[in-house]
């Protein structure tokens, strides 16, 4: 199944794209998407403990199951205001 991955702020700079498409096995979780990306982009590993994640524009935990066509987002620590 195929998901869209959205990246923000420094994560976007590390990966060099705002959006990626990735193929995952059925039953995969948000955490599986993160580990796949961290394998491709080792600099992401430093964010393991500080990122938040979202699915289809709702906050969700890393153990949340994903489905075909979902939009997954990884969010570094925030600094709005």
């Amino acid at each position: 199944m195929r998901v869209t991955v959205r990246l923000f702020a420094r994560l976007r700079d590390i990966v060099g794209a705002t959006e990626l498409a990735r193929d995952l096995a059925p039953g995969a979780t948000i955490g599986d998407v993160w580990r796949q990306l961290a394998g491709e982009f080792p600099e992401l590993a430093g964010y393991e403990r500080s990122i938040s994640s979202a699915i289809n524009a709702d906050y969700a935990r890393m153990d949340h199951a994903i489905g075909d066509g979902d939009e997954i987002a990884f969010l570094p620590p925030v600094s709005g205001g």
Partner: protein
Amino acid sequence: MIPPLAIGPEPIQLERVAAAVAAGAAAGADGAVVTFLGLVRNHNLGRSVRYLEYDAYQPLALKAFGRIAAEIAERWPGARLALHHRVGRLEVGEASIAIATRSPHRGDAYAACRYAIERIKQIAPIWKHEFFDGGEVWIEGATANPDDLHARAEAERIACA
């Protein structure tokens, strides 16, 4: 009609946010409106700031604003919130955020306004990219977790201090 909660590249207009918080309120019931305007500062951590670029996950940011509005309604019954956040490039002195809160009594309006900005900094998926003399850096603050009750309690403590 002016949306009470908004995020986008348009310049912030405080009077529009104040008007939005009034819309739908029972006439004559409220005795206070408190507003907050956040500005781009020309210095940060010893750096001379040239300008900021704000990035955001806009659909989720709007939902975070809605969650903050609901938290305020729960904590300060009768209080209402309007909030506009800007994204894109902002020059020093420009407004990045405007908040207006409204309630029957000033104490609740002040507390709710302070609570809103503290919660924005905790859970809104928005980022400052700081361009300063000699470089640039992404500012990274809190790990966003809307279900973190300790963070919520801390925002409430600051709001009521």
